[in-house]
Structures are given as structure tokens and as C-alpha cells.
């Protein structure tokens, strides 16, 4: 087909991908939020449950596939966004001496690139804080509530066991990999008010990104009619407010709790 080259290069196709990856990342946000809500349980059982959840999230093969899809979506969304922004800028080499865009459009809809950049910086810092710290950093190991015995990744307690290089030893015999205590890393991390403020700011950026992005994705994909579009718009606003707000409450809660 003679038009095929134009199809791949078309702005519209780039917007389809922007919408598709964006909506997938909305689903990811929901999943991530459900996991995070466990942090509200501040008892030892809550701590253990969260750390068991961290083991599940880093070992389950289905989760692994989803996580690679998520990384891919974030990077694709980012690169596609840069390409689209470059095309946006090229279309008006000379701007207006006096422009009043607030008269006809929302701030968030005009600043998705800036919001996206803030979100990207947030993701990098967030990954360093917890993902890198959990995988490669000096995350402590999970002990029983009285601190007397180490806990294995499957949640079993090894009485009289010692931890060496991430493995629990009992009388010189390897009993299994030790469970890491991500909960404490999170709790201690959020004792720093600057980090708490940074997380809240990151969530505000995501909220504004979603206010436009959620409903815009449906428009880009051509999914619009008189019945569903008003519902999608309301749902988008609710999503953009509720999801980042619940995320943002967690660091504030952990800061105030300790």
C-alpha cells in the first residue's frame, strides 16, 4: 500500500500509542496503589505482610512480565512524547507577541510535556529510593517481632539462625534466602520531610497529567459518543484526584506516624 509509510509516521498513529500506553499506565497506577495501601497497616503483622508482598512482586513470573510491560510503556510514552513535542514546536516557528491561551484551554492540557518531565524525574528518584535500595542497596533483613530470629522469604522463622550474604544459616547449613525489610526502608525514608514533600509534588504532577491525559486518551483513540464521553470525563477527573491523593497520603501518614 502506497500510504503505508505515511501511516507509520503519522501524528495520529503516535497519538494512538500515546493514548494506549497512557491508559495501560493508568491500570498500573491502580495496581501499584492497591499494593501501597498495605503500608497503612503499621503493626508487625502489617510490616510482615508488606514485606511478603515485596517478595511476591519481585519473584512472581506474571508480575515480572507486567513489570517489563510497564517499563516499556513508560519509556515508549516518554520517547513518543518527546517526538510529538518536537513536531508541536516545529509547527509554529514564530509565536505571538501577545497570546491568551487561558481563554480557550486548560493549563494542564497545554503543559503535558512539562508535567511528564517532572513525573519522569519523580520516577527516577522513586526507583532509586526503593527499587534500587531493595535490589542492590543495604536494605535490612526481616526479623521476628522480638528481633530474636531471622525470617525466610517464604515467611518461615528460623530460630537461632544467622544471616550471611542474604542467606539464613542454621548450624552452618543454608536454610534459604532471608526476607528483606522494605517496610522499614519506606518508613525511615519518609522521616525526611524533604522527601515527603518531593513525593507529594510528584503526585500533584501526576494528578494534573491525568486530568488531561485520561479523557484525552479516549479522544485520541476516537472513542467518543454522546453517552459515554460525559461519563469518561467525570471518571477521568475522579481518577486524577483520588488515585494521586491516596498515593500522596501514604508518605504524609508515615511521616506523622513515627
Amino acid at each position, binding site marked *: 500500500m502506497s*500510504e503505508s509509510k*505515511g*501511516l507509520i*509516521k*503519522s*501524528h*495520529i*498513529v*503516535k*497519538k*494512538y500509542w500515546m493514548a494506549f500506553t497512557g491508559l495501560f499506565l493508568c491500570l498500573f497506577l491502580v495496581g501499584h496503589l492497591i499494593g501501597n495501601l498495605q503500608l497503612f497497616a503499621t503493626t508487625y503483622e502489617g510490616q510482615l505482610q508488606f514485606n511478603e508482598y515485596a517478595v511476591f512482586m519481585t519473584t512472581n513470573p506474571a508480575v515480572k512480565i507486567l513489570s517489563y510491560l510497564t517499563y516499556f510503556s513508560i519509556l515508549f510514552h516518554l520517547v513518543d512524547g518527546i517526538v*510529538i513535542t518536537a*513536531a*508541536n514546536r*516545529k*509547527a*509554529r*516557528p*514564530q*509565536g*505571538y*507577541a*501577545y*497570546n*491568551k*491561551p487561558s*481563554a*480557550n*484551554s*486548560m493549563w494542564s*492540557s*497545554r503543559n*503535558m510535556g512539562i508535567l511528564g518531565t517532572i513525573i519522569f524525574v519523580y520516577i527516577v528518584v522513586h526507583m532509586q529510593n526503593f527499587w534500587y535500595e531493595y535490589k542492590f542497596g543495604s536494605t535490612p533483613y526481616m526479623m521476628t517481632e522480638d528481633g530474636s530470629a531471622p525470617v525466610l522469604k517464604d515467611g518461615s522463622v528460623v530460630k537461632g539462625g544467622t544471616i550471611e550474604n542474604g542467606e539464613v544459616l542454621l548450624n552452618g547449613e543454608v536454610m534459604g534466602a532471608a526476607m528483606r525489610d522494605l517496610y522499614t526502608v519506606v518508613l525511615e525514608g519518609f522521616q525526611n520531610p524533604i522527601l515527603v514533600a518531593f513525593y507529594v509534588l510528584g503526585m500533584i504532577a501526576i494528578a494534573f497529567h491525568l486530568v*488531561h491525559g485520561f*479523557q*484525552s486518551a479516549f*479522544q*485520541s*483513540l*476516537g*472513542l*467518543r459518543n454522546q453517552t459515554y464521553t460525559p461519563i469518561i470525563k467525570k471518571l477521568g477527573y475522579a481518577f486524577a484526584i483520588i488515585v494521586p491523593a491516596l498515593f500522596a497520603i501514604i508518605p504524609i501518614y508515615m511521616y506523622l506516624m513515627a
Partner: protein
Amino acid sequence: MSTSKGMNLTLKIWRQKNANAKGQIETYQLSDVSPDSSFLEMLDMLNDKLINEGNSPVAFDHDCREGICGACSLHINGEPHGPGRRITTCQLHMRSFKDGDTIYIEPFRAKAFPVIKDLVVDRESFDRIQHAGGYVSVNTSGNTVDANAIPVDKESADKAFDAATCIGCGACVAACKNASASLFVAAKVSQYALLPQGQIEAKNRVLNMVKQAEEEGFGPCSNTGACEVECPKGISLENIARMNREFFSASLK
């Protein structure tokens, strides 16, 4: 005519000798402007004054001055066709301004709308988009089929008509932060896509018109909705969604 009601205005107008010249904003004082005059009449008044003073008048596009031809343009105080809604510049009246106001008047800005002179821009890119697919092929060689012989449901007919009210003025492009022509192209695609007569060429129409718009240098659509707000004919964003759907299904065919 009472002179007490006349307004004194400071006009900041883009002046550019020709397509290749480097333009700049120039400031003019105009006094005794009637609030009842139209915006273009105010510019006529300024041009009379400039000609009488031996200066070159400000070039601007206009034709019907009835809000139906799409010839007038102008980016006034930061908005295409000025502060009014659902009107073209010719339907904007000076009562929308106050005595002592400063008014910025600039050409529509887009790579695909190069300035010819002062406030006049070349909008032939729109014509080329139209030529790429904005038509239906009808046999007119003596055996013309009565258009009304083909049944069209009321809703589709209304929507096609709404899309067809686009006058191709380019305000959508001027308002868009990306100088995107999506609303224009979508209106032209929709007006045929909604009717049975438009089905035969539907696939190539959307592909070719979108391709042409991008080749002209119009930007991507960010769904800000600025075009719909500024459109003098109130063309709906619904048309852009329809174009996106048409493009998708045409790409798969």
C-alpha cells in the same frame, strides 16, 4: 454623530513588508473610534489615516464581512477572531473594547500559514488539503442522480451539515498551541464520512487529507480543545474523534 462616545485606542499591529521581510510590532494611536463600528471598520479608519499621512496602509484579509466567507483572520488580544465567541473578526464590534484599551493585532501564526504581508497569511495549504480528498466523485454528464433519492437519517444529515459549516478560516490552527489543523481536516473528513455519498472514497480521503496536512507542516493534536472554543462555527471536537476512528479503520483496510 456624537463625538463624546468615541474611543481612543492604542493599536499594536504586526507590520511586515513581504514574505521574506523581518516584521515587527508597530504602535498606532487611533482616536474617536465609534463603539458601534466593526473591528474591520476600525482598521479601515486607521488605513484612511495612514494613507492621508502618506504611509502604507495595513494589509488584512476580508471579503463578505458577514461572517460566512472565512476570509478575515486576525489574532486579536491573544485570540483568533478576538475575544468574542462563535464570530469571525468581521462580526467583532468595537463595543467589546473600552476607551483607552491597547489592542494587539497579529496574523494567524503557523508554519503552514506563512505571512504574505502585514496581517495577511497564505492559507492555500487548506486548499491543498481539500484537494487531497475533500470531495465526492459524482457523475454530472447528463444523467445526474437526484441527491435526495438516497436516504440519509436525520442525525447523520445534521451532523454532516454541522461539519460542513466550517468556513476554513484557520482560527483552529491559530488557536492551537501546535498549529494543528485537526479540527479543519476532521470537519472536512466528517462531512463526507457521515453521508452515504462519501463512503466510496472514504478510506483514501482520510488517509490522504491527514497526510497532506502533516506535509504542509501542521502539528499534531494535543486535545486541548482550544480550536473548538475559538471556532467561529462551533465545529465540535467530536469530529476529531471521528477522524481518528476513520483513520484507524482506513489503516487496517
